[in-house]
């Protein structure tokens, strides 16, 4: 019976139980990712999850595929090197708001710009959850629960979608951990999109930001058609409340790098000859 051959979401999970607090939004992202892999019939051996450091970066260990858990902020660099060297693989990069927009900010910008065919899921809980709740680049200005910034960061938070747009990302979506099925759809579309697909996930932190349970009341699914014009998207991303979910921007662009040339016959011998006196 065909049913037996089709993998189920739990078949894509590893045997390791996540250390995430019960109530954490990342559980839903894991759930969504497995559903997307089911929908696309992804081969576990040919899929790689790549992450940096942080709670959300623990995700690769919870998926039964190849994975690379790197250092803080550098997951996107690892993912890009991997995909360029092994274009045959499905590469998904992931991490949190600190990992991606603070220490990893530069790599985020350039990953958007390079438009290498991979998917980046940023699980944004507006806090550094793993290291005891410091403010991150997306923390609201007046959030004063961190000892490092007891009066609140006092800085305007980044708008990751707007940054991604201006840096060159051709596919930008937003998800919410309270809606894993919508996230699954977005992840599935992201993985199919030829190019750099960025999903900004609002994923609540139950421990440091329990107030984020209120997100449920304000998150809203977009009713508009996906925007395909950059100027329009710029207006959208700068003006929006940052809580709208769905595929928000998409534009077809050539991926980078172009397909590699076939190796020249006797390349090494030719190079040796070029170094002769």
């Amino acid at each position, binding site marked *: 019976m065909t049913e037996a051959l089709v993998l189920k979401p739990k078949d894509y999970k590893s045997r390791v139980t996540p250390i995430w607090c019960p109530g954490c939004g990342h559980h839903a992202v894991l759930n969504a990712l497995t559903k997307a892999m089911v929908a696309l019939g992804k081969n576990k051996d040919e899929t790689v999850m790549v992450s940096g450091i942080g709670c959300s970066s623990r995700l690769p260990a919870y998926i039964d595929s190849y994975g690379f858990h790197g250092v803080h902020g550098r997951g996107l660099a690892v993912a*890009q090197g991997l995909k360029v060297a092994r274009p045959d693989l499905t590469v998904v990069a992931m991490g949190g708001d600190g990992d991606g927009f603070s220490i990893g900010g530069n790599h985020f910008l350039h990953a958007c710009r390079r438009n290498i065919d991979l998917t980046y899921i940023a699980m944004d809980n507006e806090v550094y959850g793993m290291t005891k709740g410091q403010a991150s680049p997306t923390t609201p200005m007046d959030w004063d629960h961190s000892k490092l910034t007891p009066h609140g960061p006092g800085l305007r938070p980044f708008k990751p979608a707007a940054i991604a747009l201006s840096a060159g990302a051709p596919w930008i979506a937003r998800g919410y951990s309270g809606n894993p099925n919508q996230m699954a759809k977005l992840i599935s579309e992201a993985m199919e999109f030829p190019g750099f697909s960025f999903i900004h996930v609002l994923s609540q932190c139950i421990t440091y930001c329990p107030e984020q349970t209120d997100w449920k009341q304000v998150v809203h699914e977009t009713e508009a058609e996906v925007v395909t014009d950059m100027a329009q998207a710029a207006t959208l991303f700068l003006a929006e409340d940052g809580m709208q979910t769905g595929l928000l921007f998409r534009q077809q662009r050539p991926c980078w790098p172009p397909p590699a040339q076939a190796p020249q016959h006797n390349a090494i011998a030719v190079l040796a000859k070029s170094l002769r006196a």
Partner: protein
Amino acid sequence: MKRWLRSLTNICCVVAFHLGGFTIMAVLNNLQATGGELAIAITGAGGAGVISCGELILRGWARKGGRGMLRKSFGPQIRGGESAALLVLSSNECYTAATHYQLVLALDWINFDRFEDEIQVSSDTLVICDSNDTVPGSIVASGATVRDLSFEQLSKQAHPEGRANMFAVGMLAAELGLSPGDLCQLAEQKLAGKDQAYIEAAHASIVNGYDHPLHCDLKRPAVGDTDSWCVSGNQAVGFGALQAGVRFVAAYPITPASDALEWMAGGLEMAGGQLVQAEDELAAINMCLGAAFGGVPSFTATSGPGLALMTESIGLAVASETPVCILNVMRGGPSTGIPTKSEQSDLDIALHGLHGDAPHLVLAPTDIADCVSTTEWAVQLAQHLQTAAIILTDQFIAQSTGIVSPPVNSQWQAPQSTDVASEQQDYQRYQLTESGVSPRAAPGDPGRRFTADGLEHNEAGTPSARASDHSQQLDKRRRKLASVDFGNNWADIAGGGELGLISFGSTTAAVKRAAQQLADEGIAVTTVALRLLAPLQITALDTALSACNVAIVVEQNHSAQLFYYLRGCCDLAKTVHSVARAGPVPISAEEICASVREVMQA
């Protein structure tokens, strides 16, 4: 005329020129020892093109079967600055910086004092320059013979667009017995892309210069086999890496390593590989890890400041057991330091710069030719041992172009893999094995899925904070380096004397010369040129020095990094001394000899 040490050729030429005609005066030739050497400096500023002059002469000399090396020195400007082409022509391939120049062609004297440290002249030097320029005080004080020649004027006689640097090429060609036709052809290759009129003017200048020989009977070194390479250390490293199978390079430019990456860009494309220009060094090293995780041997190149940025992720390579090779071309440090000059002051960071206990490989080619096989070896070792290899060269080796006999390849063979195919339930990426090397899966391999991790982990790769897992994995990562047979290439050992001279990298050539000199003086020397700096082959080193009562560690840095490293690992000899000096002026054989004599007398 003062006698020089026998290992150097000393020529003194005295020539006088008149505008529109030439009078050749008598030449005094001093005797030359075996291993003749001729050092020529060509200087000029404002786009005079002296580097091109030096390059053409070197290549012309190579075509004749000559051996030699070209170094370059510059002012800080990007264009139009002061430049010096420093040529050493010799009959052997033991290339050191010349400590004395027999011939200086100064197309102009603009800011020449910048080069005073490097271009040392004496009363045995012939200096040729335009009489309209004021000769620098240091030249006058040296007692060098100064002869007037207006390069600019003479070159314009043959052709209205005539160029002084090409005129100089012609002159030198005549002096060195090179064919003007060869030089014209080489010039055309060099100037490919410029318009025909420009190339014609260059040709005319060369031919014109050839017809104005110096007639100073410079003592030419003997020539040999024309089967040679004309290559820089950076190119040689790049070639070695490609030959060893590197097919992914991530590049972030930094002086003096960028040329290696640029050369590799072309080579990689030909070989079917990929190069990504990274946004910073942190991206570069991590991209390499990604590609390597995917099973593609990868490589990056940087210098001190970049290596410092990369250290966290090099540690990730060690902890996750992902192979990677990093070329570090050492330059003057610390911090931004002296980017265009050579030093050996990154030994400490290469050895000890990773946080935690992170044993890894550090190798150092001994000269330009050695860059090929040592880099190949580094890649082979990194791949087999699943760790990071840092290859240390320096600006001297990296950016000097040397004529070398065709380089040899690495002879090292990885031990046979005892990898037995296993199914998912059995496969453990970090399995504890006797050798310490675990069978390594890569994405695409069926049934061996794992997550590589910088977190300490158990055999399966699951993060672990347990004492047993940590000590087992630490032991494993150390054991795999300790239990592999590195063979004999960990160092080059020569001689058998009671005095041991220990070096690494570019000081090796100076040490070899010093050893020869000392031997002539009756002091028997054992030279040890280290190639594998980490893991240090302590037993083998002790054996190599077993006949030595005194050991001197020679290095180009201020804090005697190699000296303290070696002494921290073993005794070396009954008495150990350090000869350590920072850049930018390369340590010379004479300096080493002087220190040795001092030590021996004490």
